[in-house]
């Protein structure tokens, strides 16, 4: 399946103020494409969690939205500490978010499980001390 369109958004580490802008832009893009509201909502939730993960845990990264005929693929890749134990990180309630982020209501340990629940396909890859890459697919 051929990729029709791809848009990339940089996400800065620690920028809680602008964190969420990539998700909002992707939402608008999907509305302009005429994607159904319930599907957009699932993508929004997954994308926002991924974006905030980059803000909270990494040294910065990007979100890329790739549009295909029948699906959207969201790639969220960061530079940073990586995830030591992915299985553990996928458990609900498990969190490594720093105290300050938890005080802001983030880091409830639902991020990755929620992302997985919201999309049709979910892939995660990480190398300690280097990067984390999440790939999420939602079919239209």
């Amino acid at each position, binding site marked *: 399946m051929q990729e*029709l*369109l791809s848009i990339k958004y940089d996400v800065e580490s620690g920028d809680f103020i602008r964190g*969420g802008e990539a*998700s*909002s832009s992707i939402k608008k893009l999907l*509305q302009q494409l005429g994607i159904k509201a319930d599907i957009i909502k699932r993508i929004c*939730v997954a994308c926002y969690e991924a974006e905030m993960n980059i803000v909270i845990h990494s040294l910065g990264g990007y979100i890329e939205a790739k549009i295909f*005929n029948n699906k959207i693929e969201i790639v969220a890749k960061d530079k940073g500490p990586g995830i030591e134990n992915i299985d553990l990180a996928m458990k609900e309630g498990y969190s490594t978010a720093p105290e300050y982020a938890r005080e802001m209501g983030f880091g409830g340990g639902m991020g990755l499980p929620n992302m997985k629940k919201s999309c049709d396909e979910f892939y995660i890859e990480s190398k300690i001390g280097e990067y984390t890459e999440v790939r999420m697919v939602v079919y239209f």
Partner: protein
Amino acid sequence: MKEVFHSVSLIEEKCIGCTKCLMNCPVEAIRIKNGKAVIYDDKCIDCGECIRVCPYGAHVSKGITLNETAGYKVKVLIPSVTLYPQFGQEINPEEVNKALLSLGFDEVFDITFSCDVKAEILRKEIKKVEKPAISTLCPSIIRLIEKDFPSLNDHVVKMLTPIEISAVLIREKYCKMGYKENEIGIFFLTPCPSWITKIKELKYNEKIGFDGAIAISDIYPKLLKVLNKSSNKNYRKISKTGLLWAFSGGQSQAIGMDNFLAVDGIKNAIKLFNDVENGKIKDVDYVEAYACTRGCLGGLFLIENPFNAERIAKKIIANGEFSYKVELHDEFQSKFAREDILKINTKFADDFESAVKMIKNMNKIINMLPGTDCGLCGSPSCRAFAEDVVKGLASLVDCKFIKDGGE
């Protein structure tokens, strides 16, 4: 698809093509074309911000006049609860209703009854939708959700507003008394253009059937002449809990809800809805949303400063001696239920591939534009201009600062 109505419009002769409305429209619905403002119907939510900011009085929204209420056998007026704190001091709201009656109506309906009915049903309805439940009296907010946040439909409480409930009750009552549908005239005394639009739309709604909206500012001078300001300030026939619905936060207070957010101003509402959509607003039960500052008391057709009006409203509420005891019937719930919100399409093209092409093109154009959002092209931002170009509503040459690579 249902027709979309509007009430905000432009008097061309008064417009000099300045960029005030262009830059202040919260939903980027205005363009300047050939030196005049143009409102795009598919984007406008009738919030009235352009009327507020226009220095030349070129943007208007007009309700009907008192004379235009003629021609009905029975005429019933529903005053907005925002009317009572508009007189600079606390007055007895019953006196206001008496004064309204003397302007030529057969009945002035007590809208606080409908507010109490709504409050009673709302407590149950909130639990039927996704958290946070969104409830709003504001047609502009509803239109905003329909247009830009259709996925929030599952959060919106499916229930009529007290204004609509009033109309249903009035029509029912007079029909039972033997009046024919077209002999009953039902009018809303509105604080804002948003409701003028809504009432226009409801004219064609069989269940609700309004006959017109009158702007409070239009009736105000006449009302001042006949209003008795000096009577006893205590009142017994109007509900104090109903009067809470005039300002932001009042709904939640009326239904006894603590864990709520009350958001006012379109831009603030947009930000909050984005957060709800992203799943960021988690532990909130209830959201009230209004287009105007401080809620309906910020309405464009109101006289009193909204902050002072809120102070006065609270004093009036403190003088109240009763609330309606509403007994809930199942029949009520279905009678006052509202349909799902419309889903207004904002897609670029009917087929997916053309839409993709247009977006690619738009992104190319955005890169050629200076990003200064100067407004000289007649669009409110470079991004909006790029969208206009791909939709064929503007031409690239309209930008005076296009970077190399532009045609």
